[in-house]
């Protein structure tokens, strides 16, 4: 009798995926901005680690422990240098884990997740609008690749100084100075620390830092308002790093599977998915939707235990 009760208890136990993921995200948030502790405790000796990670971690910020892969990609091309290591990281992590780091490590993803948890409702966007808006992030990524690669090519051929001047503060990366992670982890802390002396509030010409700061603040406002209105708005529709990692996600080793003998097609998984993926329409053997961040919210929500990870 006792063993039966024990077995029933084990069977009814559901691993708290959501809570566990939030804990990992919380730790990753501090780990990626670990150098901020140097300002509080100067005796701590931690240095920047030059390894790109496929998440939104600003290379501009002096708090960053590990820089974002797309930031490295843009800055290296603007020097011009072929980004061997960033591309290698994208291929290695992308082919094995897909967009796993988007859902588990990205600090901006964590902020959006907190907003979603505070709101408590996973708002749905109409399918037609959702499908159209997904294309925006690929457009943003292609803009970045276009400007960075053409600048690199022209600089390499020693004919790009005019082009570089024309791009002005955006030469090192078209999104780099105004990205929400740059504004949040670099611009705002600098403004708070030094105010007018930071030199960021200069409005003498259109390319002055003041206007770039304003543009960055507008993008950050869009990030927060968007995250409140639509779950994981930035990851879904704007994030170029997400678009970049969505390419290897289509065939990555890590994916999800749905056991059709257990699945009751209740739709709880579709309801909770923050990326609005139609899980029940995907092949059950293994599915690697490019929008899936492997957050495992669907696995946690499935009462019949039909969903699980699959590797490879």
């Amino acid at each position, binding site marked *: 009798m006792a063993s039966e009760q024990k077995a029933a208890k084990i069977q009814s136990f559901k691993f708290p995926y959501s809570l566990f993921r939030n804990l990992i995200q919380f730790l990753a948030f501090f780990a990626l901005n670990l150098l901020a502790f140097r300002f509080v405790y100067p005796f701590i000796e931690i240095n*920047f680690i*030059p*390894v*790109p990670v496929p998440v939104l971690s600003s*290379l*501009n*910020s*002096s708090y*960053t422990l590990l*820089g974002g892969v797309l930031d*490295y990609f843009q*800055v*290296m091309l603007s020097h011009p*240098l072929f980004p*061997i*290591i960033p*591309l*290698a*990281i*994208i*291929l*290695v992590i*992308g*082919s*094995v884990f897909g967009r796993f780091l988007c859902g588990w490590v990205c600090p901006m993803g964590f902020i959006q997740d907190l907003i979603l948890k505070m709101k408590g409702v996973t708002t749905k966007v109409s399918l037609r609008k959702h499908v159209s808006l997904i294309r925006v992030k690929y457009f943003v990524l292609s803009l970045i690749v276009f400007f960075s690669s053409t600048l690199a090519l022209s600089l390499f051929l020693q004919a790009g100084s005019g082009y570089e001047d024309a791009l002005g*503060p955006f030469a*090192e990366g078209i999104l*780099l*100075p105004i990205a929400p992670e*740059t504004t949040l982890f*670099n*611009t705002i802390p*600098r403004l708070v620390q030094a105010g007018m002396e930071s030199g*960021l509030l200069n409005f003498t010409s259109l390319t002055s*830092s003041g206007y*770039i*700061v304003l543009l*960055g603040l507008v993008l950050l406002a869009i990030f927060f308002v968007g995250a409140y209105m639509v779950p994981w708005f930035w990851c879904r529709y704007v994030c170029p790093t997400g678009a970049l990692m969505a390419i*290897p996600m*289509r*065939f*990555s*080793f890590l994916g999800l599977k749905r056991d059709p003998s257990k699945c009751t097609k209740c739709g709880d998984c579709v309801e909770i998915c923050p990326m609005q993926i139609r899980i029940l329409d995907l092949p059950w053997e293994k599915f*690697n939707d490019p929008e899936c961040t492997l957050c495992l919210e669907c696995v946690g929500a499935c009462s019949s235990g039909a969903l699980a990870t699959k590797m*490879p």
Partner: protein
Amino acid sequence: MRKIIASLCLTAGLLMLVLGLYVDQFSYLKMLTGIPGTP
């Protein structure tokens, strides 16, 4: 088919990582934090 593509990508990525180590690109990456000129 997906496994073949993933394996090819993984192999290519690992080879590029070795190449990056060979040309010592990590020491260059170290210099790229806190880029001046950006807000």
